[in-house]
């Protein structure tokens, strides 16, 4: 009998524990804010993202008599974490979204319009405030407007090939790649990441060529417009580079172009500025973008802070956003965590002198990805179709037709 009582007691305790686990843990007080940030610090950094933002949150909490809970969301499960968090009311008050995520969250009504919380003076101090005006509302405050994809060259290899300067247009790139193939055996002229498991490689490997050909991803109404003469020109150029051997023999298995570049096995890569600075190659140089049939343009990241509609104390959250983007915090962030250009008028550029001109003289070459419905899956579909083209399974025309048809019938 005692054993039975003991067993039943244990069962009841287990049941109680299970029920407790089903409780809503998201009931935060109005003076508690949850902040989800993205990881930007390098793996060997002295200060981690968690440490940095926790300290910033504590400073804000002490000044405003509130608590800021900080969570760093890994890139690997970024979109899932946001979707499950936001829909289960266990998400953040303030989050960090990238361009591909905006359309759906705005359409779902999950984001708050920030416009009323910022004075004209506040707005004037932000360099990219208007960039956060998306689909008719100020749903974002651009936070990282940087890391543009640039063409980086190993100048020692170019010298060996008889090329004196980094190419500035497609023709010069073609000539330089020919020279590398002819004079530098075993060297891949241009290493591009067409073997990555994520479509994000398009940002460096395709969009700069596409835009420099004069292409536009979507029109003003949000219709996909890649299937044009300009899109075809960019893809044909990419295909020809692969056919001529500029991209190496195993282009669809290259998931990190920095590896051959750092090992001295590639003459050019398209890299973001942050990674270019960490290159092992001593003698390197860059151009911001190559001009094709049209002016040179390249992709720049435009990640933004957002406030969620579910936030109970929006005034306080807006104050926190202002604090996070203040000159004081941003200067420290750019010096400690990630080398990025300023986002406010007050902040002085504190990054590498190598890129000082890039963010001033070449700023008109930089453009962010557009916001439109089904962006992630369209990019994924295009990426996969381009992989097939590089393997000789699709023509450039088929890539554009298939991607557009898939988008129009399944994603639009």
């Amino acid at each position, binding site marked *: 009998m005692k054993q039975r009582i003991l067993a039943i007691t244990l069962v009841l305790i287990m049941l109680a524990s299970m029920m407790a686990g089903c409780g809503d843990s998201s009931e935060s007080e109005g003076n508690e804010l949850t902040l989800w940030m993205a990881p930007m610090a390098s793996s060997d950094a002295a200060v981690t993202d968690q440490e940095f933002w926790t300290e910033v949150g504590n400073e804000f909490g002490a000044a405003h008599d509130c608590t800021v809970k900080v969570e760093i969301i890994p890139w690997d499960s970024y979109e899932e974490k946001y*979707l499950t968090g936001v829909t289960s009311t266990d998400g953040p008050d303030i989050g960090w979204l990238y361009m591909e995520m905006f359309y*759906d969250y705005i359409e779902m009504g999950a984001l708050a319009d920030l416009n009323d919380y910022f004075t004209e003076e506040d707005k004037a101090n932000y360099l990219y405030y208007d960039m956060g005006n998306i689909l008719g509302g100020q749903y974002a405050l651009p936070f990282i407007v940087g890391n543009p994809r640039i063409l980086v060259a190993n100048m020692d290899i170019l010298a060996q090939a008889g090329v004196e300067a980094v190419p500035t247009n497609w023709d010069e790139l073609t000539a330089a790649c020919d020279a590398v193939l002819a004079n530098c055996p075993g060297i891949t002229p241009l290493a591009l990441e067409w073997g990555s498991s994520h479509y994000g490689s398009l940002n460096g490997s395709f969009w700069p060529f596409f835009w420099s050909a004069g292409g536009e991803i979507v029109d003003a109404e949000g219709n996909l417009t890649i299937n044009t003469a300009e899109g075809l020109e960019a893809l044909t150029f990419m295909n020809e580079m692969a056919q001529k051997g500029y991209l190496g023999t195993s282009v*669809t*298995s290259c998931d990190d172009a920095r590896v051959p570049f750092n090992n001295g096995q590639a003459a050019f890569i398209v890299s973001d500025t942050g990674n270019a600075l960490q290159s092992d190659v001593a003698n390197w140089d860059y151009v911001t973008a190559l001009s094709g049939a049209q002016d040179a343009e390249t992709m720049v990241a435009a990640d933004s802070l957002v406030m969620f509609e579910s936030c109970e104390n929006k005034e306080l959250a807006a104050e926190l956003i202002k604090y996070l983007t203040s000159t004081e915090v941003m200067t420290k962030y750019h010096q400690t965590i990630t080398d990025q250009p300023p986002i406010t008028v007050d902040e002085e550029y504190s990054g590498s002198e190598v890129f000082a001109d890039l963010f001033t003289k070449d700023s008109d070459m930089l453009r962010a990805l557009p916001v439109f419905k089904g962006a*992630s899956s369209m990019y994924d579909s295009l990426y996969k179709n381009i*992989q097939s083209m590089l393997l000789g*399974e699709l023509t450039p025309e088929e890539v554009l037709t*298939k991607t557009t048809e898939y988008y129009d019938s399944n994603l639009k």
Partner: protein
Amino acid sequence: MKQRRLEAMHGYTYILPSLILIVCFSIIPIFMSAFFSFTEYNVMNPPKLVGMDNYEKILQDEYVREALINTLKYVVITVPIQTILALVFAAFIAVKMQNKAGEFLRSVMFIPVIASAVTSGTIWRTILGTDGGIVNNILGVFGIDAINWLGDSRTSLISICIVAIWKNVGYFLVIFYAGIMDVPKSLYEAARVDGANMFQQFFRITLPMLKPITSLVVTLGIIWSFQVFDLSYQMTGGGPGYSSVTIVMAIYNAAFKNYKMGYACALAMVLLVIVLLINALKQHVFGEKEG
């Protein structure tokens, strides 16, 4: 009568926690998914009934078609090979390695089972690397040209199958080993007296006696194979092209990339039906009877 009812109550109390978990996290979600599969639903806003629209779209979705074909290929390749390998290894260890070395081998072969798919995928990406990968380096010693394992649409899915087999064999080996150890020794003794050699003992005694275990292994293998996602996601992202996209990847993309939960649920229902049908077919093949 009252005593029997009390005993039944007692029994139900014991299974109650597990029952609640299964009902909450398996049974109810299946019915919810079935309902949502007839709706347009993005999780944030209330679902809107759309009838059979999601199922009609599945028939026209090229991505899903490729994913289904790839998943079927994956099942056809992995399930028989991992089952046969696990059985052969288990029999070998049970017969020839009843010692410390056998225990060590079993433990070593179980390590891939407990390794996370992300870790396994990352390690195998390096091993199968086209330039400088261990496998290609070994092939190079024999004068074989480097193979673009993960970057070629003809070999990407096969590469994932190899990793999956490597990861699963240890688990099924343990199940088979336990089954072999349960076979009465007297059967083998009698067979030896009758002059049966080792192969005859294996095919006439071990294999028939392991029929229920083999059925379990095949069932689990089929179910796991249809759920393949993490290895493919980690190693190739479904590429190059659509050569290694899988049905669960299609569900994942619909749910978490496109926020089309209704469509994702419809895909999940299709997957459920396929698994149930194949399981029924398998029961027919193995001649299993209800009850």
